[in-house]
């Protein structure tokens, strides 16, 4: 099977995505936006999936929380997966609500043995309710979570081992977290269980001052180091990868997003060639 390259479905990009479907292998739809969809909404999602393979991406379950995921949301995800039949569904290793407070964003849990158990338990619970294992994504965080006894690559590796979940590796999140920790993103990549990666996210961000940090904002073009990480990943694994470009606002002319999709294809091809050259040399 070949690698695939696609884009996150956003209403603002709908027309351009349809106009360029010959260059888009897959689209990723935010599932939570369709939890309340009626028959008409589901029919449109089905028609979309007739035109192009779709993946459902959840943002509100908080599967790395100490608390079990909200049953209503899980049931909604199960209904959507059942009705739309996506290629896969995914969620984040994060908590999104606690003590009755909604964060409206993804928060990093402490990286320790207990949160590994919580995540594995919640992922198993989600698998039972939805009927398919979620592909789990690493998140970006501007703050090192307190009560952590592991670094991020160690914690992620342990969560994937304990949960047996496939990995959605967000290379921009990895780049942002490693850079903000003063570490080398390539070294972080090498320490992850890359054989579990099924899907990859690429996106952009920007530097902010006081304190100087790289912000994962999805409002800018994917930076070069992220494509370098993609090349490295493609050179290190044998399984096919599905790469999804995420853009959440400040939409440029679609040609610029097309260029990023082509850069992703080039990075993948370059990595695959490096792997073949390496095997031949050996």
């Amino acid at each position, binding site marked *: 099977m070949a690698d695939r390259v696609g884009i996150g479905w956003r209403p603002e990009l709908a027309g351009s995505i349809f106009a360029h479907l010959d260059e888009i292998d897959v689209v990723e739809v935010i599932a939570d936006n369709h939890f309340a969809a009626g028959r008409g909404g589901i029919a*449109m999602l089905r*028609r979309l999936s007739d035109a192009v393979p779709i993946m459902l991406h959840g943002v509100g379950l908080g599967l790395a929380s100490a608390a079990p995921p909200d049953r209503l949301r899980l049931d909604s995800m199960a209904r959507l997966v059942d009705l739309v039949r996506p290629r896969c569904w995914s969620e984040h290793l994060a908590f999104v609500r606690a003590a*009755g407070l909604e*964060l409206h964003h993804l928060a990093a849990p402490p990286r320790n043995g207990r949160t590994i158990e919580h995540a594995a338990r919640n992922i198993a619970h989600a698998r039972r309710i939805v009927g398919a294992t979620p592909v789990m994504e690493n998140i970006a965080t501007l703050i*090192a979570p307190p009560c952590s006894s592991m670094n991020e690559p160690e914690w992620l590796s342990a969560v994937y081992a304990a949960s047996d979940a496939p990995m959605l590796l967000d290379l921009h999140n990895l780049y942002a977290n490693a850079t903000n920790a003063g570490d080398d993103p390539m070294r972080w990549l090498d320490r992850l269980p890359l054989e579990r990666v099924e899907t990859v996210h690429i996106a952009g961000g920007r530097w*902010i001052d006081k304190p100087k940090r790289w912000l994962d904002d999805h409002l800018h073009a994917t930076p070069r180091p992220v494509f370098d990480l993609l090349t490295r990943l493609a050179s290190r694994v044998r399984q096919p990868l599905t790469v999804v470009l995420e853009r959440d606002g400040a939409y440029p002319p679609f040609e610029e997003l097309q260029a990023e999709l082509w850069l992703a294809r080039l990075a993948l091809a370059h990595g695959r060639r490096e792997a073949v050259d390496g095997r031949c040399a050996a």
Partner: protein
Amino acid sequence: MDDARLEGFLARLYTDATFLEHFIAQPTEVARAAGLSADQTQAVAAMDMDDLRLAAGGFRSKGARAMAASHGSAARGRWRRWWRWRVRMPLVLVAWRLSRRRITEARR
């Protein structure tokens, strides 16, 4: 250790600006008063406060956007969903099918 209590404490730091400033001024006292264990209190007091302020600002702005999108605008949200999925999306699909048909006929 009560992990849910710690998550609740962090959630409050991320969403409540007054509580955050109170914590930054007196981290140990505020954490203890919130019922965190001694280890948890020590860990949260050792957090980088500049990073914490930055992260909390991000959470609050996301929350404000989410509230603005939902507060008093349920009808607008329904209207927007109806427009996107019942009107615009079918039009886009029809346009896409027509363009595919035109391309196929041109190839013939």
